[in-house]
């Protein structure tokens, strides 16, 4: 029971802060609300017995990516949006979003929610350690995708330098 209460609290904060991301006019406020959402996500990951993923979430998302975004917002010196949104645009967008939610809940209601099961139990995680389990899977079973990821990051580095540079 306390588990459900805590989950509801974290989920409520996550939903409210993500609504603020959409509703706030000033991009900096949006970014701060998004950081709040990321922290709620990290809390949920801890509840799902994935402490290493929670740490990664805080370091990579709430740390690195959001610092980059806030840095660019400040670099471009953006101000609060003054132009009005079109009413029909907002209306249609809301309808599309609600339809998305309906489709997702339809899938949830219909599907049996099963898949390839494994041997990862909370007991194993406390005994071996979550980081070690992740490392074993990543450097044995997923070695090739891991290496391809490094190429992706290299491409991203080169691409962003070329795009942001005034003259090569």
């Amino acid at each position, binding site marked *: 029971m306390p*588990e*459900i209460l805590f*989950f509801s609290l974290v*989920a409520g904060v*996550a939903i409210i802060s*993500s609504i603020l*991301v*959409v509703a706030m006019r000033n*991009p900096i406020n949006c*970014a701060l609300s*998004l950081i709040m*959402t990321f922290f709620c*996500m990290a809390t*949920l*990951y801890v*509840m*799902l*017995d*994935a402490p290493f*993923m929670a740490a*990664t*979430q805080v370091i*990579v*998302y709430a740390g*690195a*990516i959001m610092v*980059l*975004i806030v840095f*660019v917002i400040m670099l*471009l010196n*953006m101000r609060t949006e003054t*132009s009005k*949104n079109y009413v029909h*645009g*907002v209306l249609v*967008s*809301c309808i*599309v*979003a609600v339809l998305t*939610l309906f489709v997702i*809940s339809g899938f*949830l209601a219909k599907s049996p*929610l099963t*898949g*390839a*099961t*494994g041997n*990862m139990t909370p007991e194993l995680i406390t005994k071996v350690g979550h980081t070690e389990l*992740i490392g074993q*899977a*990543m450097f044995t079973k997923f070695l090739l*995708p891991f290496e391809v*990821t490094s190429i*992706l*990051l290299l491409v*991203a580095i080169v*691409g*962003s*330098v070329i*795009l942001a540079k005034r003259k090569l």
Partner: protein
Amino acid sequence: MLSLHHYLILSGILFSIGALGVLIRRNAIVIFMCVELMLNAVNLTFIAFSRYLGNIDGQIFVFFVMTVAAAEAAVGLALMIAFYKNRESIDVEDINLMKL
């Protein structure tokens, strides 16, 4: 008892809010943040399934999603800076022509 459904519903709600933000906002950086929100909703689904099926593969996928998000952040923000240099604005309504 907390079940898989709780997490999946939360993830669905967050994904819809992210999609709504992508549709109604006009500032490119805020749209970008909403995309990040949608990616995070999917990450939550991956980790919830991984926990309830006892299969660690989902969490490895979250790593790759995070990597792609980081690469996307770097390239996307570089694009926005390049666009801002030309137009003094990153409103998506100004990004409607291929030429400058």
